[in-house]
């Protein structure tokens, strides 16, 4: 009795399951709804413009399209952020077509500049004085690092640190 019932259920699973699979198939316009810029893997990175630490210039993320971007949120008071800075500096200068952008979190220009000089670091630093890019990327802990491919799509996110040189290089090599 139960055996017959189960065999009928197996048949029903194929028919009804197949029917639901067909009815619930996504429309073309629904497939793309997840592609709006957001701070998550697989979708375009939200664009932003922030003042650079040096040269009185602006750093606009969309201007870096076509290059691999390592977007690192950091602050001088954050110990793991300080530890991983030399590794980020090394990657910026050793791998072509990679741009490391450090987004400093709400600290003064003087403080950030002094830290960069003391550590002999010279990769681009964006000053997020108001914390607006922090909110845009929903950064809840420092450091947080986004790996963005040449098309501007986020391919990996690393929460916490410190990142080693090898880890950053391995993440970047996956995007090359």
């Amino acid at each position, binding site marked *: 009795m*139960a*055996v*017959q019932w*189960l*065999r009928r*259920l*197996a*048949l029903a*699973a*194929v028919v009804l*399951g*197949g029917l*639901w*699979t*067909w*009815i*619930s*198939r*996504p429309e073309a316009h*629904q*497939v793309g*709804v*997840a592609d*709006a810029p*957001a701070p*998550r893997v697989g*979708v375009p990175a939200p664009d932003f413009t922030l003042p650079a630490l040096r040269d009185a210039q602006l750093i606009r993320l969309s201007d870096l399209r076509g290059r691999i971007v390592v977007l690192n949120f950091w602050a001088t008071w954050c110990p793991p952020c300080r530890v991983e800075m030399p590794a980020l500096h090394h990657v910026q200068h050793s791998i072509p077509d990679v741009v490391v952008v450090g987004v400093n979190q709400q600290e003064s220009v003087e403080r950030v500049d002094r830290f960069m000089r003391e550590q002999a670091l010279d990769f681009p630093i964006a000053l997020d004085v108001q914390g607006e890019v922090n909110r845009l990327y*929903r950064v*809840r*802990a420092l450091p947080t690092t986004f790996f963005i491919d040449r098309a501007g799509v986020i391919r*990996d*996110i*690393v*929460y*916490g640190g410190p990142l*080693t*040189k*090898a*880890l950053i*290089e*391995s*993440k970047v*090599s*996956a995007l090359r």
Partner: protein
Amino acid sequence: MAPIIQVFGFSVQAGPLAALIGFVAGLSFAARLARWRDVDGAAIHDAGFYGALAGLLAARFGYVVAHWSAYASEPLSALMPSLTALWPWTGWPVGLAVAGWMLWRKGMARAEVLDVLAPGVLLGAIGMAAADFLNGDSLGLPTTLPWGVALWGVVRHPVPLYEIAALVIIAGSAVVSVRRPLPAGAVALGALAAYAMARVAVDGFRADGALLAGLRVSQLAGVGVSAVALWLLSEVLATSVPAHRNPTHFIEAESHADNSQ
């Protein structure tokens, strides 16, 4: 969505934490259920623990080997633990192989073990679904229903919550079934069939995932797996002899009656 939560002043990744809680709870639960099927619960616990440990080490080793050009200049950094530097293609096979070998060595490569593991695995899946929800993964289609969740600026079906609801029902049914005198393997096959059907139903509300000819691959796989699992379940029931129809049961009962006379 909360990928990072604060625990006693420390920033913790919510997704991996939920997955870890699901794994530990599932393993402990499976070990506790083992006594209902005359299975060694401690052996299940050990197999799960060492399997997970071996899987993590293999995943880390696989990642380092796959990116050796990056690690060659500073090989000691390979020893630094990192949840984002793991390679699942080595981790899962090695973890499962070690757990399976430990069970086989104890003579536990039996269908009863799968029955005992089924509720625990489902509990672990609840943890994974919770991790998806906290990470903001498994996007649902846009909806105007009152239980929709705002995610990345759009109100969407909370697909991981649907999955959790289905898993709770299936896991509860599996726990009840483990305590019943069903043929070996029946609970595991029933749970597999129910889970596959739940995926067919729930994934109909997903906005991501792979497509094949315009249909979701996960749903197509779910249809196939549920049908095969139900068919195998019917075969298990057809070839097994229920306890109350077991001829030896009657012989024992008759001899017991003779002795009492």
